[in-house]
């Protein structure tokens, strides 16, 4: 039998349903890949082999009776941000090492309801704060892709670097991920995979370790646009346990694929060009426009004038929300508690200094600063006003366009260690993705080409709130036209 681990999620689910192979077989194949690859790629922080095989056998029993959900028997990876009942969940932090949730996140509960099999928990930047997976307490994830001009280990991006690396390296059929400023779409772009952040409120945040609650959304990283449509549908649901969950129907987005984009109006924002962006990324963006034009779409030049202010506003809002969310880690009820302290305050401060890594400490300090007396209006309130300006930019163009096409990232994957000199340089990775978080809009990154060094580059489609259908339709057309079939050469 051909290599089961190279299948798409769609092909695997169909094959399982047709009983061409069993869930146990494909699960064992992935577990073998993980065993070989993980010492090099570091994508999983916790493989759960026994649990995976138990779940696979249960799925096989259901499939044998002709039963089973839409993901029955499909082995998936889970970002270590989703609480999994009885399975350690750390969010990539020493603060939560040894934390075993006594409950399941709604997103993962939905996957198990639909028959999926959990292969393990995936590495990530600590508390999802990072763009290169280098802030993880478990060490950086390595990108399966190598540049043609250097043998250096490359970052898979972040914060969902483990998810992206595992999908690109055939260590799972698909993976869950989360996106606060670009943490699904940037790693997808860096690894030649597809990543979707749905409309804010589509996927429940219950049981997702919180970073910045007004921005956090779960979504999938997959090999194809169709796989993303399938997995996202399972992940999304209305959830009374999340006060911001939207009480709306979850459509079958795979129905949008293959639909012609003829007549669709695609916006090209003038402002999505940044200094130092490689010519290849610009060329790919132009190619994307040409593909959609050839497929019958109308290309419309638009302006989103507040784009350049999105990242600075984000670096006030996200740290402010984080400083509030992460106040719960005080070493009292769960999480790391320092062994010795002189007073209660000293115990809080020492526990947090020991438990949090450098980038998390930096962001919590910024957050406390912008919320502190005397600075609250100048920084925090101003950022919230700018946020509205950014959202209004989008509102103003939706009567002229149906979706927006942009590059996913300003560059291809970079070497581990390359951007650590200056935090702001690292933050610029999210320049094209963060606007969709601030405005709550759906966005997808689709692999669309390779740069001169042979590394994947992505294009992003942003849509109207709750209009993932058009986003998938356009993404499908881009995928068809790009014909992106390149895979990383196995070196691990």
């Amino acid at each position, binding site marked *: 039998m051909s290599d089961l681990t190279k299948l798409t999620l769609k092909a695997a689910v169909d094959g399982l349903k047709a009983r061409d192979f069993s869930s146990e077989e494909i699960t064992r194949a992935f577990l073998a890949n993980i065993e070989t690859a993980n010492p090099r790629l570091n994508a999983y922080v916790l493989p759960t082999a026994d649990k995976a095989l138990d779940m696979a056998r249960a799925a096989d029993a259901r499939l044998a009776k002709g039963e089973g959900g839409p993901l029955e028997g499909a082995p998936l990876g889970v970002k270590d941000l989703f609480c999994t009942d009885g399975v350690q969940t750390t969010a990539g932090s020493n603060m939560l090492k040894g934390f075993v949730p*006594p409950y399941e996140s709604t997103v993962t509960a939905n996957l198990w309801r639909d028959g999926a099999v959990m292969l393990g928990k995936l590495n990530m930047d600590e508390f999802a704060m990072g763009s290169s997976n280098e802030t993880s307490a478990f060490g950086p994830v390595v990108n399966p892709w190598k540049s043609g001009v250097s043998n250096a280990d490359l970052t898979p991006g972040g914060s969902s670097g483990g998810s992206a690396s595992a999908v690109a390296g055939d260590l799972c059929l698909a993976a869950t991920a989360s996106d606060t400023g670009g943490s699904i779409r940037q790693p997808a772009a860096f690894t030649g995979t597809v990543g979707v952040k749905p409309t804010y*409120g589509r996927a429940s945040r219950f049981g997702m370790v919180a970073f910045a609650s007004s921005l956090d959304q779960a979504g999938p990283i997959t090999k194809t646009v169709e796989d993303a449509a399938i997995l996202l549908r399972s992940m999304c649901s209305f959830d*009374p346990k999340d*006060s911001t969950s939207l009480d709306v129907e979850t459509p079958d987005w795979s129905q949008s694929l293959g639909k012609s984009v003829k007549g669709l109006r695609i916006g090209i924002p003038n402002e999505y060009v940044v200094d130092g962006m490689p010519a290849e990324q610009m060329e790919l963006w132009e190619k994307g426009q040409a593909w959609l034009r050839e497929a019958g779409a109308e290309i419309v030049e638009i302006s989103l004038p507040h784009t350049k202010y999105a990242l600075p506003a984000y*670096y006030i809002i996200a740290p402010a929300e984080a400083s509030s969310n992460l106040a719960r880690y005080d070493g*009292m009820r769960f999480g790391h508690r320092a062994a010795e302290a002189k007073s*209660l305050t000293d115990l809080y401060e020492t526990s947090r200094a020991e438990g949090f890594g450098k980038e998390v400490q930096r962001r919590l300090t910024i957050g406390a600063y912008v919320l502190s007396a005397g600075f609250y209006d100048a*920084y925090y309130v101003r950022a919230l*006003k*700018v946020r509205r300006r950014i959202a209004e930019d989008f509102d103003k163009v939706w009567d002229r366009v149906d979706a927006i096409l942009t590059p996913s990232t300003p560059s291809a994957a970079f070497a581990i260690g390359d951007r650590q000199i200056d935090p702001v340089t690292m933050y610029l990775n999210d320049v094209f993705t963060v606007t969709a978080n601030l405005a709550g809009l759906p966005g997808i990154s689709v692999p669309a080409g390779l740069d001169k060094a042979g590394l994947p580059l992505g294009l992003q489609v942003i849509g109207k709130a709750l209009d993932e259908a058009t986003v998938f339709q356009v993404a499908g057309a881009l995928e068809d036209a790009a014909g992106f079939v390149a895979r990383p050469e196995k070196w691990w």
Partner: protein
Amino acid sequence: MAVDVATVRRVAHLARIKTPEERLEPLAQELNGILAWIEQLNEVDVEGVEPMTSNVHQPLRLRDDVVTDGNKVADVLSNAPKSADGFFVVPKVVE
């Protein structure tokens, strides 16, 4: 609005993160780098703009005021660094 060492010390305390003296100066420099970049928000005309705290265009749902969960002492304590007799054990708060 440059941040000095005294401010960093105060803010680190607000954030309840113990920061060694030798780390304060480098942290001040990092924060100043980030804040200098953030300063560009002052260019935006935000006159009369309502602060945007949420993306959700629906009023917050209310639920019936009834108990729907509970009686999970063992679950609640299962990750406690220290517990005894169904309680969290914490250091002495009042001297």
